[in-house]
């Protein structure tokens, strides 16, 4: 007969990818699909055109005819948000794409290059990273001017060192991995094992970082637009809407609050997607 049950030890069980992370991934993938649909077919979702003024119905609060109310010119806030996704989300995506491509080039050059080139590039990225991202982006805008494209470039450039460092580290680890050596021993040509083993194994973490980064890039883009460095009114860009709305915050809160919420939701989705991808890759 057993007499007792006891459990000891202080070590906590390690957190592992569970069913929860699958659900998270499913939800965030669905949300991303919805955003893509908004980008491609805004007309399907928006009941009104984004730039139709309606002087009869200015400052209407949210109702069944105007889900999120109307602004100072009587434009439907919901429709403007739907059409504005095209500017805000696209800017974030383009910025991230610029950062990933340039960062990968920087990282791969450092990993593949001579020891001197590696040291130079890494010290340069150190300096780069020492500046706050927004400050760097402002610097770039000061050089190339304002507008949607300029903002995307500015944010992308500011994020390059983060991707560069990640890619360099991954590339160094993977090229020295025994499985790459095993392919070499089998006589697999260099271009093929780079394509088959190195890039996919380097790419995984980059995808995770990029999906986390897209959210912050979108938020940064909206921030710069809010400061008036992006597209000009009446563009329904979310940052611009936020800037316009803040004047009327006391009387018509919905004009500014909903664009702000939209930014929060999109950043949240991109973070959720990134985290669930991360959990899967750690499994």
């Amino acid at each position: 007969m057993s007499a007792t049950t006891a459990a000891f030890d202080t070590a906590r069980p390690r957190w592992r990818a569970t069913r929860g992370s699958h659900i998270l991934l499913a939800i965030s993938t669905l949300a991303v699909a919805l955003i893509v649909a908004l980008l491609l077919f805004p007309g399907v979702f928006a009941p009104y055109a984004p730039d139709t003024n309606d002087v009869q119905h200015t400052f209407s609060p949210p109702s069944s005819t105007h889900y999120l109310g109307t602004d100072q010119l009587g434009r439907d806030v919901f429709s403007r948000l739907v059409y504005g996704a095209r500017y805000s989300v696209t800017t974030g995506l383009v910025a991230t794409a610029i950062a990933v491509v340039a960062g990968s080039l920087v990282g791969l050059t450092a990993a593949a290059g001579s020891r001197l080139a590696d040291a130079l590039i890494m010290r340069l990225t150190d300096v780069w990273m020492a500046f706050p991202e927004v400050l760097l982006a402002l610097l770039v805008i000061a050089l190339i001017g304002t507008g949607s494209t300029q903002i995307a470039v500015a944010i992308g450039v500011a994020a390059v060192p983060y991707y560069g460092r990640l890619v360099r580290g991954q590339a160094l680890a993977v090229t020295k991995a025994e499985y790459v050596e095993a392919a070499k021993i089998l006589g697999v040509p260099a271009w093929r094992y780079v394509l088959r083993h190195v890039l996919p194994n380097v790419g995984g973490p980059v995808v995770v970082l990029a999906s986390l980064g897209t959210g912050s890039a979108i938020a940064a883009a909206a921030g710069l637009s809010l400061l008036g460095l992006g597209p000009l009114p009446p563009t329904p860009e979310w940052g611009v809407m936020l800037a316009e709305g803040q004047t009327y915050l006391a009387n018509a809160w919905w004009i500014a609050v909903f664009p702000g919420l939209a930014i929060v939701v999109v950043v949240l989705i991109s973070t959720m997607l990134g985290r669930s991808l991360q959990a899967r890759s750690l499994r």
Partner: protein
Amino acid sequence: MTLVEVAGLEVSFGHEPPVVHDISFTIEDGECLALVGESGSGKSVTARTLLGLAGERARVRARTLRVGGADARNFSHRDWQRLRGKSVGMVLQDALVSLDPLRRIEDEVAESIRLHQRDSTRAERHQRVLEVLTEVGVPEPELRSQQYPHQLSGGLRQRALIASAVATRPDLVIADEPTTALDVLVQHQILRLLEEIKEQGRGLLLISHDLAVVAKLADRIAVMLDGRIVETGPTERIVGSPEHPYTRTLLDIARGRRAQRPPYTGGQTLLDVDGVTKDFGERRAVAGVSLTLRAGETVGLVGESGSGKSTLARMVMGLTEPDEGRILLRGQPWSGTPERARRAQRRHIQLIQQDPQAAFDPRHTVGRIIAEALPGQRGARRRARVTDLLATVGLDAHLARRRPHQLSGGQRQRVAIARALAPQPEVLICDEPVSALDVSVQAQVLDLLSELQQRLGIALLFITHDLTVVEQTSDRLLIMKDGEIVEEGLTKAAFEDPQHPYTNALLQAAPRLPGSPTAPKGELR
């Protein structure tokens, strides 16, 4: 005095079936009990249970569980803490990871004294640390106690770890695979040290996968299989007349009894290494090594860690260029040729690495891993060839859909062999091919390699630190030390009449059971 009394111990995790099943044993003072079994047999869990470290989700049940004279069944967290380090000391396998890299040896050894003798002064503790370091045979204890783990050799680190386990003079010392990570000569010294600890009247629980290692030290042996003790008794009885078939298998493996190889008849020279040298900065890793390998021949290359054998293997594989000397493969220049020219020749020489898990792309399935070695073959033909190769190494075709981490260690090494065989090589270099595997799996993989060699007439270069592995597999033997070959000859001759003192030392330090093909001649102290 009875130090440990366990009866009907059962340990399970969560709702899974128990990993330790109704086991019972006792340890008296001055006695050594060895728990012998392979990975997953439950021996480490049993040992950790005696320290209250089975794990948070562990469910421990026992009729009797007495440790250090007290009933440990209802021990609280604090009770266990009082017990650990004071009446029971634990020595783990790998001193490099078990010692805190940021703490000096003195702090590490003094920690348990500080915890259990709270009124001790700093000077007293310092004195005790020097004492215990001297006891475990650390030379220059004053100097060593002020150093960090990375400044110590593997053997010294293991001694320091043992010192920290015995610093508070515990009655019982638990040693979990204390020599598995060590070279043969160092292993021999550590086993002698553990023997001394036993002679001081302490109880010793020794855990190992290797019967030959424990046979000299243990008074009694308990053989574990799948969470149960299948056989237990005095060492002489277990080694002399084992009853359980599993014990017999383990003994046969430890004695190196495997199918006899037919004598080697000779063939054309396939690999010709001529005076190769390789320096890493100031250090000469390989110094003027020459060797030949002929068709159908097995050559064993034995050396301890740091002897340069893996660097030599990398040069032979064309992964590193020698600084001096040259290597010919099938009579053609191999070293010093551009990779473009070498690539077409690569299929003639293949490598089996120590850690097959690392040698596979984690994202690929077994089928894809093997298929990579089959360029130019597609579709059904390629699938058929993959199935063929899996069958050659004794694996079922359905494993082709699995990923490396879903296989057992033995299965992984078989997949590695299948991939190495895919391009139909003439030369196969095996760099520690079995040292990451359990003993019974080791035997299977070695048998497979030698069977394949006889069937396919491949030349094998067997690189290992383990003499028992080469004894049964190799026609010729090379012993490497500090980058040089110090002994070369037929395996049988080298074992019977070693020419170099180092070979002699290696042979005598190798743990052996009575009845092994080559028993040691004298005693090494």
